[in-house]
């Protein structure tokens, strides 16, 4: 039974959002390692029973939903900014500067990077990077279709995601990803010039250099 204090907000969707927001607040304050259902319940001001009724997978299901919600928020900020680009260069510069700014200012991410880097790390290196790349590329590719063929659009989006991930995980003090002028010069030199270069006919390059054998 819902308690009196919960009674005014008993819709499943309302509880769900409340629990997710509470979980995010808890993780931002103290990370995921010692996070319990009780912490989330008390932050959300709901009972344990309400939590279990809303998320039958318990703590991990709540964390999964929290990540999903944060990714959706991030993508929606990105979409609003990227939708305003007037050409390919501007699109890529926007994608890099806005994502770098958003992710650098994300408090939950900052806490996790400082205190439990392995939580972030497994998604950004060959552990699960393919999933992360795929999600980010699938999100970004439609914005590239206006200027590139669909297959090129996916690969171009993927290239830009890689640039962002590389600089966020291994920053270069001399290159600020939030500095639009510096990013524009970088993008025009390395990225746009490559994307508009004529693609090779695929049939031209069938012969391979003999690779040296590697004993395994």
């Amino acid at each position, binding site marked *: 039974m819902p308690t009196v204090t919960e009674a005014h907000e008993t819709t499943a969707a309302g509880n769900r959002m409340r629990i997710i927001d509470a979980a995010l607040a808890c993780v931002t304050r103290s990370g995921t390692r010692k996070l319990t259902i009780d912490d989330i319940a008390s932050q959300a001001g709901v009972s344990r029973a309400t939590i279990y009724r809303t998320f039958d997978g318990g703590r991990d299901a709540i964390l999964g939903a929290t990540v999903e919600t944060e990714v959706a928020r991030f993508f929606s900020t990105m979409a609003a900014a990227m939708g305003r680009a007037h050409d390919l260069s501007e699109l890529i510069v926007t994608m890099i500067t806005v994502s770098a700014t958003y992710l650098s200012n994300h408090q939950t991410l900052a806490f996790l990077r400082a205190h439990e*880097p*392995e*939580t972030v*790390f*497994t998604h950004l*290196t*060959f*552990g*699960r*990077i*393919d999933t992360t*790349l*795929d999600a980010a*590329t699938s999100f970004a590719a439609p914005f590239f279709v206006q200027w590139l063929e669909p297959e090129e659009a*996916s*690969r171009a989006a*993927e*290239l830009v995601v*890689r*640039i962002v*991930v*590389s*600089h966020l*995980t*291994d920053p*270069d003090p001399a290159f600020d990803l939030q500095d639009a002028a510096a990013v524009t010069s970088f993008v025009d*030199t*390395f*990225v*746009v*010039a*490559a*994307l508009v*270069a*004529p*693609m*090779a006919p*695929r049939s031209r*390059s*069938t012969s*391979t*250099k003999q*690779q*040296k054998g*590697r004993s*395994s």
Partner: protein
Amino acid sequence: MASEPEQREIILQATYACIARWGVKRTSLEDAASEAGVSRATLYRYFGSREQLMNAVVAWEYRRFFEQLIDDVSDASSLAEVMELGLQSARKAIAEHEVLQMVLQTEPALLEPTFSAVGSTTRDRVAQFLLPYVLAATLAPGRDPEAVADYLARMFLSYMGAPGRWDLAESDQVKSLVEYELLGGILAS
């Protein structure tokens, strides 16, 4: 009696064999010592703690990996070729690296401290390795060789770690990736 460097190498090899069998967490100093055929006291003389031993094994395997990679690209005569051979070789080595695959499957978080510690060092080393090839290439006007080497090193490590939409076992695709997507804006046309 084995010399000190030899004994160190034997212990590292033995520890690596234990990790391959049981994983990192379940490998103890006793396991490593007994696999190497040395006493615990001897092992302690070389590696003061379990943590030191594990770090040394990672550094040792990491060096082996890059030595093999450098060997695989030694015939390359151009920037494009060194990138192509390197990506193919690294991709294959990672896919066939049983211990790395096992750790990634079972204990991926254990790699975090190592990767954080060596991340920028690795990028620097790859960039330094590529720089002579960049300097020998004819660059498009206004391309700074150091910036080119840094960018290519970052992308090399990125595609090496995860091929994404590319099949790096296909030499056509590797060629297309390197010559057009990576070098298209860098080399003079």
